[in-house]
């Protein structure tokens, strides 16, 4: 395998990592932030899974004729990480719904504006 192709999965991992982080920082919409967080977390799945695969390797079941096995442990770990990611996404979206009920918006700047207006009126009115 050529060197470039060997690094392909790493390149994708890094791209997803940076792209996800960028979306989280650059987007003010809470749903888009959650999308960014999802992409960010997905990059880690790839980081774990890709090195566990051996070219020509099979599932780790002892059988005649097979001598090269892939490492199953990363899959198990990432299964856990996916569950955690789903829970985080669910909780984040639930919070976004509650925020929408309370503020009538899921845009970060509009929410901040409302909070600042509250704080301002409190200082003036006591």
């Amino acid at each position: 395998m050529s060197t470039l192709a060997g690094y392909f999965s790493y390149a994708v991992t890094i791209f997803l990592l940076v792209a996800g982080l960028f979306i989280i920082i650059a987007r003010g919409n809470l749903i888009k932030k959650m999308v960014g967080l999802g992409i960010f977390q997905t990059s880690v799945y790839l980081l774990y899974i890709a090195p566990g695969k051996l070219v020509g390797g099979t599932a780790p079941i002892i059988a005649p004729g097979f001598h090269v096995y892939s490492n199953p442990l990363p899959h198990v770990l990432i299964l856990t990480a996916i569950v955690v990611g789903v829970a985080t996404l669910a909780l984040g979206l639930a919070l976004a719904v509650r925020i929408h009920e309370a503020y009538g918006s899921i845009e970060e700047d509009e929410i901040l504006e409302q909070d600042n207006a509250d704080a301002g009126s409190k200082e003036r009115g006591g």
Partner: protein
Amino acid sequence: MSIAAQLPALQVALPLLAAPLAVLLRHGGLAFAVVTAAAWAAFAVAIGLWLQVGQLEAGAAISYHIGSWAPPWGIEYRVDRLASFVLLLVSGMAAVVLPYSRASILREIPRDLHYLYYAMFALCLTGLLGITITGDAFNIFVFLEISSLSTYVLIALGRDRRALTAAFQYLIMGSIGATFIVVGIGFLYLMTGTLNLADMAVRLREVESHRPVLVALAFLTVGISLKLALFPLHQWLPNAYTYAPSAVTAFLAATATKVAVYVLIRFYYSVFGDSLVFHDLPLPQIMLWLSLMAMFGASFVAIFQNNLKRLFAYSSVGQIGYITLGLSFASVNGLTASVVHLLNHGVAKAAIFLLIGGIVARMATAANRDAVPMLRGVPADAVSPEPTFDRLAGLSKRMPLTCFGIVIAGLSLIGVPGTAGFVTKWYLIIAAMEQGQWWLVGVILLSSLLAVAYVWRFVEVAYFRAAPEGSEKNEAPLAMLIPAWLLVIATLWFGLDTSFTVGTALDAAQELVKNGR
């Protein structure tokens, strides 16, 4: 097999079982009973583990194999002196805060959500205890997420709508931190092929100079620093502490950031080894300056806060600076200061937030008496009272015990002799002098002056400003006052008798430094 051998598993299993039980019971009172019983049992288990570890020779640890699978293949629970110290802190705080929260959340959380509050509290406790006790890198991540996810929910239970945005912000920042930690663990796993921390430390020796190990160190440091709110990664903390229910703030301030510090110490000393972390890299310098910025920057910002809860939230960021400052010395005395401050600051800050919870409760009743009729304890559109300074004028007349407690715990934040905070400062100064950094001694004393300034703001308003007309003595309910004062007395106790705190911390620090080489 005797029960004593099963204590490490019980430590995590008890609160973990209490959480679904609380949900199934669907009743606030019953859930409270179950979760409190579990927390007290966990505290008893932690005491048992601490006694067991004390009997071992220095450097040894209790190793518990989950499902009897031998490490490094199976998951190992490992209790050494440091772990048992942190376990005591976390479970002890839960044991004190839970009885308090019954009276506190009556006024802050709608009654039909109470059983969920207790379930989330139990899960949070499970996660924090699990992070501390486990000897498996990926297990740390799983428990970290268990505690974090339940923490986000607990914060979002706050009455103010800003609690929701604070929880969301913390969710984003916390998940980024956790993902950084997994990336770091992933690199370590790629380099060593093992997830067991002790086994990882041995195998890392052979590949120490490879770049992925440094990348792992960087990712872990940044990720954990986000979780422990190291300056400038602390932005999630002030809002989360300010708008969370009072009991939650007290528990988080005392435990969540402290457990993150524990993870950092664990990775630095028990996995990477301090020669790689502190001698080959400029990490001590970086950490020193970040700590100083936290000690001065955050404390300075605290002085100008108008909300008492937010003031002490910023103070927490500053106090975490002292903990990381101790780490940056990379010496036994410095590490002792860090470890001992985990407990000293945790106890003092939890006492303060519990007492503020009493103030908020009284303000809530006062506000609701004039406002809408009560709806099952908590009016749906009740005014959520913020403990701002203009409402605290002359508070010492109305709530003398509460105010006096805050002042004593505040003295501990300053580091006045006779309080627990002094012990930390003492060891920090010894560590600084040991390395010939005399200027740091002056800097540490100077930063204490900032703490004097923000504690004095409270004293000035509560004791010297005239109370509004017609205010009568209205102390916080005893159910809230007793747990809070228990911690205030502990602050004084640990300031005078340091045999438990410093004794354990010093043993733990020596053990870590010896094993870390």
